[in-house]
């Protein structure tokens, strides 16, 4: 089955990439965007979806500084 993992910087950690995007949007004429956070997305085919959390904890994310969200089709 197809799984998708979204990885984001933890709330409260300075996210300069998110801030840079937030600053750039109004400069291009897009008002009203805020709370921008920039993360990563990992897509994969898995045979056993129950191991996904462990994959995230051990490799795909760093739990000290990142949150992750798993979606399985």
């Amino acid at each position, binding site marked *: 089955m197809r799984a998708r993992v979204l990885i984001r910087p933890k709330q409260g950690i*300075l996210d300069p990439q998110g801030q840079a995007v937030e600053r750039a949007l109004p400069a291009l004429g897009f008002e009203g965007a805020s709370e921008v956070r920039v993360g*990563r997305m990992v897509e994969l085919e898995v045979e056993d979806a129950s191991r996904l959390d462990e994959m995230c904890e051990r*490799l795909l994310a*760093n739990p000290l500084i990142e949150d992750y969200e798993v979606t399985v089709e």
Partner: protein
Amino acid sequence: MRFGVVRFPGSCDETDALLACKRYGDAELLWHGDSDLWGVDAVVVPGGFSYGDYLRVGAIARFSPVMDAVAEHARAGGIVFGICNGFQVLCEAGLLPGALLPNAGLRFVCRQVDVEVVNADTPFTRACEPGDILSIPVKHTTGRYYAPEEDLRDLDAHGQILLRYREGHNPNGSVADIAGVSNRERNVMGLMPHPEHAVDPLTGSADGGRLFESMATALAPA
């Protein structure tokens, strides 16, 4: 005194680290795929872009066979010294507290900075005095040190903060201006500045040499 410098696919400063170590002892390269440390006294995990910095800096390197041996060596009290990407790998491997995040300025920065020795009572800093200022270059995109508030208090209390950027010299937004830390036992150290590029006045300063000198002395036969 034998130094072992780890080489991952994508390491850049391993030959520089090798050259620096050779001024203070014998030194050899340790291939990432090899889980044997060949009896070296100190392991240096060097700078560069191991595995292209893919996924997350140091995230893939930390699973190399050699890193199991390095962890074992650390657990047994052996000396482990992580520079820049090496620092990132050691944090990912759980051998050092905290994590390294993208620089606050978001850009790569290569610059000579002053760091202050906070704790001279470690095998990495014994050739220095507390308060000594060392001029050492930094060069990285992901060097902003982070640890949660409570952990920071702990680090401070246990003398695990070894180096701090001098006022006005913090190049990346590291919390509390932290430039280098150690584990609780003080046998594993990580730092973002590159002391291997500060061992010869011809190419800059020689201040970084004191860290290698400290390690060589720490392991000298009594």
